[in-house]
């Protein structure tokens, strides 16, 4: 096997996922070894020669697979069809491996994976429950399968993109064929009157249907803008194209020297190409976001009258139902605890970095994670009435307010359109009444002015910069969710950070202290039994310790095994004066020791904060955590302005106050408790690993673990904004030269085509400079 032969230098790549491992090991984990054996057993080792996924991306994830059988649809008889979203599908070789591995199953009829949408369509003959077996096969290969959610479907089945592509096809066909006729008219100076009339009619035959059909995306957008009593770029485009069509038809009737169908159709083709590229770049980010959200979807286990757990969708739960919540699972509905006290991680709902013990009968808000044993809760509100839905409604309001943001291009258009119309109108009147030309002839220079100003450069200028920037950010793990996000991001002047999960990674780090290595080993043996973040932090500091089997966990208090106790001060009979997170460890006959922790900052938090400050932004932290924890984090990253113990409403109020004071705050958060503030902020960024609601409320989603992507994104947005302004200025300069020529009637279609093409080319080349800046970041 090629992968095995290559394993002689240190360190080597894991033979399955490619992550670095120390020889003589061939695999980074047992999962990869099993996956490799599976692939080799199916004679599919060609996969490893073709693989180009990032290292470590294919490591099998021990997460239990979601129930998939219920998502399968009956096709005919015993043929089932299942649409899955596959995460980990990174390259063509992955597609090949998935399809071949599934095709090797005897009952699979077809398996087809799409790399762009990460969608797997699977058909098989036999029992419905085979879906679980297929999912576990995919899981063992290192791919995680979840049902294709409606959000994914919307992102994948993009009707608008298809419509744009269709229009572009028609416009390109029309433009090329009209050009066939037009060039003949341009060069055929000795062409007879009749032949020219034939040529004009041919051009009209091709050009008019093209203008009518391919321009629809622009006409629709222009109509909706006019209905809202606004002027946008599409109004200018629609007027220009339609007026050119009408004038050319009138010229055809009176057999004028030139018709202008070529200009109108070429313009449409160019603009549609720009718009399609823009749409595709955004669609890619949209699909990646839908993918992140689909991973957080899940089912709830409801206890039925017979006391058995059944998996049902969240929407099917009524108030009063009993639900099971396994260890480590996230609560999806508001509920009260039935029996034994439980330990919940509330960081998503309140921002507290340490879990809290909750007594029986106390309400827990949706979003909390069960850190203790599996337990039963009584649901207090259906999903549509719960706390998450209330936040969702708030966010809708915020999204509407944000939708009213007028982009720079549209602001330019609202000045530009009236001026252009005035110039065209004056030209027409001047030639018709002033110079006494017949009105049909006076139409030619007037519409000529319209089409030459018709914002080819202007309408391509901004999208071109956006396409390049959105694409460059996507490759660096920043998803741009809203079309106006970059522009707003470029204009922010103040950054509000959440602490837990945003500046910090939510993991706790052990500090050096007055304990010995043997103390640590003994304590870590106990700590292995718990999923409490402090216990996890202890184990992380001392990984190679076997688990003690006699450990008993007292939720919210600590752990006990054979007289040794590990836990909070009161549990261990100690008194603690600091509010720093601490685990006490007491053993009979030994000195008690204290392990002190702090919520670990993200590795690049300090650098990211410094970079933001270098961009001229003021910074503050608003967190739901305790004063001590917030102050410690703030000191470490160097932010002076802090608010601790802030409830979700307080966070939103802080943002609202900043906006009322005329600031443009950028909110960076990750939890459900940040969603309100994210929605209200001038621009919002969801931190890596954010909750679905926070992601939905944000303009940008950071997908990589690095916080450094944030200052980079702001820099990119500012640069994009500057380039867009340059482009608009450049296309205006063109008009200063072209418009007088058009008004004086010196413009021929050939000159107009040359002017438009060269101005478009200039702005596109300028936009490409946004990509060059991208190269500078990676250094």
């Amino acid at each position, binding site marked *: 096997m090629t992968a095995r032969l290559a394993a002689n230098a240190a360190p080597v790549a894991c033979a399955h996922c490619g992550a670095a491992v120390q020889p003589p090991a061939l695999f980074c984990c047992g999962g990869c070894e099993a996956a490799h054996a599976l692939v080799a057993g*199916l*004679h*599919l080792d*060609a996969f490893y020669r*073709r693989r180009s996924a990032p290292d470590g991306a294919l490591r099998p994830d021990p997460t239990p697979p979601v129930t998939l059988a219920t998502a399968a649809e009956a096709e005919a008889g015993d043929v089932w069809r299942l649409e899955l979203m596959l995460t980990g599908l990174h*390259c*063509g*070789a992955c*597609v*090949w491996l998935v399809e*071949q591995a599934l*095709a*090797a199953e*005897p009952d699979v009829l077809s398996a087809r*994976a*799409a*790399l*762009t*949408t990460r969608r797997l369509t699977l058909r098989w003959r036999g029992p419905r429950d085979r879906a679980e077996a297929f999912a576990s096969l995919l899981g063992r290969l290192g791919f995680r399968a979840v049902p294709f959610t409606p959000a994914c479907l919307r992102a*994948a089945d993009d009707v608008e993109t*298809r419509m744009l*592509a*269709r229009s572009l*096809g*028609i416009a390109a*066909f029309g433009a*090329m*064929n009209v050009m*066939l*006729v037009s060039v003949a008219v341009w060069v055929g100076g000795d062409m007879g009157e009749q*032949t020219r009339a*034939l040529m004009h009619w*041919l051009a009209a035959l*091709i050009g008019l249907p093209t203008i009518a059909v391919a321009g629809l995306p622009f006409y629709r957008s222009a109509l909706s803008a006019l209905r809202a009593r606004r002027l946008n770029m599409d109004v200018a485009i629609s007027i220009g194209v339609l007026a050119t069509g009408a004038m050319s038809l009138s010229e055809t009737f009176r057999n004028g020297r030139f018709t202008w169908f070529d200009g109108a159709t070429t313009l449409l083709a160019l603009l549609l190409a720009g718009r399609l590229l823009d749409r595709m770049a955004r669609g890619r980010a949209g699909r990646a976001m839908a993918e992140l959200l689909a991973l957080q979807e899940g089912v709830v286990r409801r206890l039925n009258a017979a006391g058995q757990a059944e998996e049902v969708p969240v929407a099917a739960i009524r108030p009063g139902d009993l639900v099971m919540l396994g260890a480590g699972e996230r609560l999806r509905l508001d509920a009260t605890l039935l029996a034994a006290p439980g330990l919940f991680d509330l960081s998503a709902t309140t921002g507290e970095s340490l879990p809290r013990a909750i007594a029986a009968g106390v309400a827990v808000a949706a979003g909390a994670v069960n850190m203790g044993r599996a337990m039963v809760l009584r649901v207090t509100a259906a999903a549509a009435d719960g706390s998450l839905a209330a936040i969702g409604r708030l966010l809708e309001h915020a999204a509407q307010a944000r939708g009213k943001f007028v982009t720079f291009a549209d602001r330019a258009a609202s000045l530009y359109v009236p001026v252009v119309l005035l110039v065209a109108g004056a030209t027409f009147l001047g030639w018709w009444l002033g110079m006494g030309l017949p009105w049909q002839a006076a139409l030619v220079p007037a519409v000529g002015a319209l089409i030459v100003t018709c914002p080819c450069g202007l309408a391509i200028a901004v999208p071109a910069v956006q396409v390049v920037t959105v694409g460059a950010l996507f490759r660096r793990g920043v998803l741009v969710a809203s079309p106006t996000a970059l522009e707003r991001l470029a204009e922010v002047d103040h950054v509000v950070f959440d602490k837990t999960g945003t500046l910090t990674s939510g993991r706790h780090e052990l500090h050096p202290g007055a304990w010995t290595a043997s103390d640590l080993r003994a304590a870590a043996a106990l700590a292995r039994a718990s999923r409490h973040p402090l216990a996890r932090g202890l184990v992380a500091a001392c990984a190679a310790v076997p688990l003690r089997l006699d450990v008993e966990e007292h939720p919210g208090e600590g752990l006990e095994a054979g007289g040794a106790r590990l836990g909070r001060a009161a549990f261990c009979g100690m008194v603690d004066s600091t509010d720093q997170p601490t685990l006490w460890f007491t053993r009979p006959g030994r000195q008690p020791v204290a392990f002190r922790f702090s919520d670990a900052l993200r590795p690049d938090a300090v650098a990211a904060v410094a970079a933001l400050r270098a961009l001229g932004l003021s910074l503050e932290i608003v967190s739901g955590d305790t004063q001590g924890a917030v102050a410690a984090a703030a000191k470490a990253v160097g932010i002076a302005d802090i608010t601790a113990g802030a409830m979700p409403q307080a966070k939103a109020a802080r943002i609202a106050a900043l906006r009322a004071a005329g600031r443009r705050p950028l909110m960076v958060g990750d939890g459900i408790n940040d969603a309100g503030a994210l929605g209200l902020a001038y621009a919002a960024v969801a931190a890596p690993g954010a909750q679905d609601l926070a992601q939905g409320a944000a303009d940008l989603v950071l997908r990589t673990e690095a916080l450094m992507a944030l200052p980079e994104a702001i820099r990119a947005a500012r640069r994009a904004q500057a380039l867009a302004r340059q482009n608009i200025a450049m296309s205006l300069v063109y008009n200063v030269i072209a418009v007088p020529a058009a008004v004086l009637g010196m413009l021929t279609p050939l000159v107009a085509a040359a002017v438009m093409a060269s101005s478009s080319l200039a702005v596109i080349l300028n936009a490409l400079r946004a990509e060059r800046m991208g190269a500078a970041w990676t250094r």
Partner: protein
Amino acid sequence: MDALIILVPAALVLGLLGLGGFLWALRSGQYEDLDGAASRILFDDPPPPKEPKP
């Protein structure tokens, strides 16, 4: 100029054929997975023989 009577319709029909082909490809979903299609052409192995059922 008589040649135009044949050449122009011929050019138009050929162009329309191309346009029809594009619209058909678009409708049948061939533009849905451009990334996948790009790498798919490199995989020409026949599928592994199905194992006989025990």
